[in-house]
């Protein structure tokens, strides 16, 4: 859900008001971090790329047009491109065995215990076995909380295609997770 006074905050941030940008940053840090976290191989990389996203957003605020794309959607685009640049630079392929467990110091392990970290690892690993389109749709829907319409717009596809990818992705993910359950 965007901030109620987002257009005013963005306008002020574009004119150089760091406090306004700060409000936007505080509101969206968690969602951008989550977006990146599920698309990279480890927590450190997620932190670095999240940092890059907000630095780039500040640097390129002049290019953002108020009244067009929502500010969060624009941040997602910057994050998406940053993730792509990361893989292009590192030539890292998202293989099942490359997905690492979260850092033990990470909040999710501290708060929810090892079981949750293991489950997260399984989910992240299983997501890597999907096609790129299926993975993108599931992440945008269930992690980034977008509607099918928003996902369609973000990916440049028809809504019907998004629904089909969602179903195929969920079925494949479900099957993959079931295969990992020990008997």
């Amino acid at each position, binding site marked *: 859900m965007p901030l109620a006074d987002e257009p005013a905050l963005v306008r002020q941030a574009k004119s150089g008001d760091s406090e306004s940008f700060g409000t936007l940053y505080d509101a969206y840090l968690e969602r951008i971090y989550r977006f990146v976290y599920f698309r990279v191989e480890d927590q450190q990389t997620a932190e670095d790329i999240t940092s890059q996203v907000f630095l780039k957003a500040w640097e390129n605020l002049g290019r953002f047009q108020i009244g067009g794309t929502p500010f969060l959607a624009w941040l997602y685009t910057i994050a998406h491109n940053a993730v792509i640049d990361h893989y292009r630079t590192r030539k890292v392929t998202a293989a099942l065995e490359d997905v690492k467990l979260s850092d033990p110091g990470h909040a999710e392990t501290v708060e929810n215990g090892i079981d949750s970290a293991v489950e997260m690892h399984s989910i992240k690993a299983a997501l890597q076995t999907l096609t790129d389109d299926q993975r993108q749709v599931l992440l945008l829907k*269930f992690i980034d909380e977008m509607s*099918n319409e928003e996902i369609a717009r973000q990916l440049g596809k028809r809504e019907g295609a998004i629904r089909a990818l969602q179903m195929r992705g969920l079925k494949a993910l479900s099957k993959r997770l079931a295969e990992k359950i020990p008997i």
Partner: protein
Amino acid sequence: MNEFDLILEECVDLIASGETTLEECFVLYPEYAAQMEPILYTAVALQEEGQEVTPPPFLRERIRGQLNHVMQKKPEKKSRSPVFFLAHSSKYVRAVLCPADDQHGDGTESPARQVPL
């Protein structure tokens, strides 16, 4: 698309938006409950596990520091405040560095107080 897929899609969308629960879907469509169960559980797991992921507390302040540095380097993009997020950062710094004064109840200093800024 067959009936099962339509019902499954409906349940997935309602669960994703928080308008219904897994159990309510099973009650609504008992004839498909067994078939839907693994897929809906996956959707719920993805959603719940995903929402558990939050940035570590230090990351918020680290990025603030980086942004502050960048803003101070660009005088043509003047900030009203010379220190980035001064009003916002103080409460987060306090939360990280200064939790309850006597967390252990034994007069010892909380470990968080020893973390350098």
